[in-house]
């Protein structure tokens, strides 16, 4: 008590257990403060997966800065001025302007390890459950690449599927990689994600294609891209950054 009084904080609570009804009421109130209509009940993997691990890194980066900066606006400026080591400079830039960050897990994948005739990797995400009043400012697909013994140059391209069961695709982003590269590759899919948020029915997925320098198509797994059959902590996912358009208003109860 003395130490808290020294810091100008006074403590006057008596600790006691809440009854069931009281507890439920408090839970309801705190959920309302958090802007949630109900308590989420996620079905989780036993092992840590890639998206929560990445999001935890983001959280830690934000939290360290929040503790150092009393004012929220100062914290955001600090993020702009300083690169965070855990996440890349690009995520750092997006994070500085974001009020909400969401990760989306891959729901479907036509994996080349299963389909030996397939030269593209299909991924699908559900971006329908975005909270109301959030404006998407940036989105990136993150896919892990393992090292391979062939140190050649490859081009990876990400396409948006325009029509199902046809070859109608829209190129979104490309990257040049080397066989020796290892780590997370990021592809800008902001425009497509915005379209999916507005019209979820157009969310037909993404396709990933890999070519050699002489435009020979090869299987994505061959260059070390991790798919659905890979380890949980290296699964592909989307991370999207949002800015709140309006202040959060609690509903009247």
């Amino acid at each position, binding site marked *: *008590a003395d*130490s*808290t009084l020294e810091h*100008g*904080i*006074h*403590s*006057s*609570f*008596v*600790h*006691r*257990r*809440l009854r069931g009804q*009281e*507890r439920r009421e*408090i*839970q309801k109130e*705190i959920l309302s*403060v*958090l*802007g949630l209509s109900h*308590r*989420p*009940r*996620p*079905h*989780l*993997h036993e092992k840590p997966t890639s*998206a*929560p691990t990445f*999001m*935890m890194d*983001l*959280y830690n980066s*934000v*939290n360290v800065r*929040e503790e150092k900066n*009393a*004012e*929220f606006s100062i914290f955001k400026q600090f993020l702009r001025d300083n690169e965070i080591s855990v996440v890349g400079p690009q995520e750092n830039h997006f994070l500085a302007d*974001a*009020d*909400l*960050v*969401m*990760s*989306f*897990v891959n729901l479907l994948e036509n994996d080349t390890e299963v389909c030996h005739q397939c030269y593209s990797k299909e991924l699908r995400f*559900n971006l329908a*459950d975005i909270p109301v009043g959030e404006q998407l400012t940036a989105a990136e697909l993150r896919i892990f690449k393992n090292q391979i013994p062939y140190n050649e140059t490859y081009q990876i391209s990400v396409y948006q599927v325009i029509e199902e069961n046809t070859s109608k695709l829209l190129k979104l982003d490309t990257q040049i990689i080397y066989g020796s590269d290892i780590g997370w590759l990021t592809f800008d899919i902001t425009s497509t994600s915005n379209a999916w948020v507005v019209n979820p029915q157009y969310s037909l997925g993404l396709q990933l294609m890999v070519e050699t320098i002489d435009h020979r198509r090869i299987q994505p797994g061959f260059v070390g891209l991790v798919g659905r059959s890979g380890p949980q902590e290296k699964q592909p996912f989307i991370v999207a950054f949002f800015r709140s358009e309006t*202040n*959060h208003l609690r509903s009247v109860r």
Partner: protein
Amino acid sequence: STSGKHWNLEKAKASKEQGELPIGNLTESFMSSSSTNAGRRFLKQACKKHELYVSFRDLGWQDWIIAPEGYAAYYCDGECAFPLNSYMNATNHAIVQTLVHFINPDTVPKPCCAPRELQGISVLYFDDGANVILKSYRNMVVASCGCH
């Protein structure tokens, strides 16, 4: 104004001073405290920041809230009595409000002890679809209290 609303405010304050628990005490099982001196809450004290910890863990939410385990929200409580200059962070209007209260104590209440500065927190949690959400919430933590 001399509406009955002010009477209700005074009555509510009076009943609180007579021994009703502050609203925060309803929530104490998910808060931690370093003091157990129950008698203190009946003493008239200057407007101050008080300890109040919201524990997501004690609410049984550790299955969907990844971080933090909880946060120090604090709350403001205490009396805004004359002279207000001796109390922290009184607004100019609070001083005027105090004077009007002196002139008409039965109808005009004293200034209220309330947050003057608030800070945000970030919460990391799962939604129903096992997607992960990192959200910044503004105005969640009392940085300082004052008389308004």
